[in-house]
């Protein structure tokens, strides 16, 4: 079975693909002025938090505590998203001393979509676009003075943005 024509053909194809990809990678690196080390440090990416499947677990992994609902967090999302691949989401807050903003899409395979670090002097307002698998609740979480506050909104998704 290992040496059937199909298997060997696939192997050869894989090798060819690898060679092409390797060539492309070589070109990319060759024409790149500052390769190898990135300015953005990948180590600060909270891998655990992005693997969680529930809101509570994701917040626990990211901040180590749960959030309480607050009207001082504003979450702007469309009521109906025709295309789940690109849903504009804006989070804003009137809370003082905000240090972080996180956005969770509860029905996605992994709940946590994005987390932002807000240093002093940066406004706690972020706009970006997210993918949503289906109609889902979206939760915006704001970390202020060591506590978490959240706002929730449901977005109806007509065409999912995660499945094939």
């Amino acid at each position, binding site marked *: 079975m290992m040496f059937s024509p199909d298997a060997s053909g696939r192997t050869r194809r894989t090798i060819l693909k690898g060679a092409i990809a390797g060539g492309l990678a070589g070109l990319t690196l060759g024409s790149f002025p500052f390769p190898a080390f990135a300015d*953005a440090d990948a180590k600060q990416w909270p891998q655990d938090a992005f693997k969680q499947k529930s809101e509570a677990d994701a917040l626990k992994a990211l901040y180590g505590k749960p959030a309480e609902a607050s009207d001082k967090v504003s979450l702007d999302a469309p009521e109906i998203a025709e295309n789940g691949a690109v849903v504009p989401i804006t989070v804003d807050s009137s809370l003082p001393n905000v240090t972080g903003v996180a956005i969770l899409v509860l029905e996605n395979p992994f709940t946590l979509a994005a987390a932002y670090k807000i240093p002093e002097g940066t406004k706690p307002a972020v706009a970006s676009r997210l993918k949503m698998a289906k109609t889902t609740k979206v939760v915006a979480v704001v970390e202020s003075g060591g506590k978490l506050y959240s706002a929730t909104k449901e977005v109806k998704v007509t065409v999912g943005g995660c499945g094939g």
Partner: protein
Amino acid sequence: MANTIRIRAVASGDTTEVQSLIRHPMDSGFVKDSKGQLIPPHHIEVVQFEHGGKVVFTALWGPAVSKDPYLKFSFQGGKKGDDLKVSWVDNKGESDSFVGKIQ
């Protein structure tokens, strides 16, 4: 590689509004290609914005962020002509950075 980052930063009063657009597939790992094979995850993990030697914004992204991600935020400080540096790194270790001028 052509530059993947486009930014537009405008200073008004004491705040600077930043908009950025990065060209990246942001593959989630859940989508299949035309042959039915899963496309492996390939997404940006960290985006960092620096102004005057200080990090003014850090984005930590999972695979749920849309393709060719857009971002808008604003920070205090920054004036016309200042440099604003943007850099990103993805889950495959690829990266790019770009220095733009505040308008």
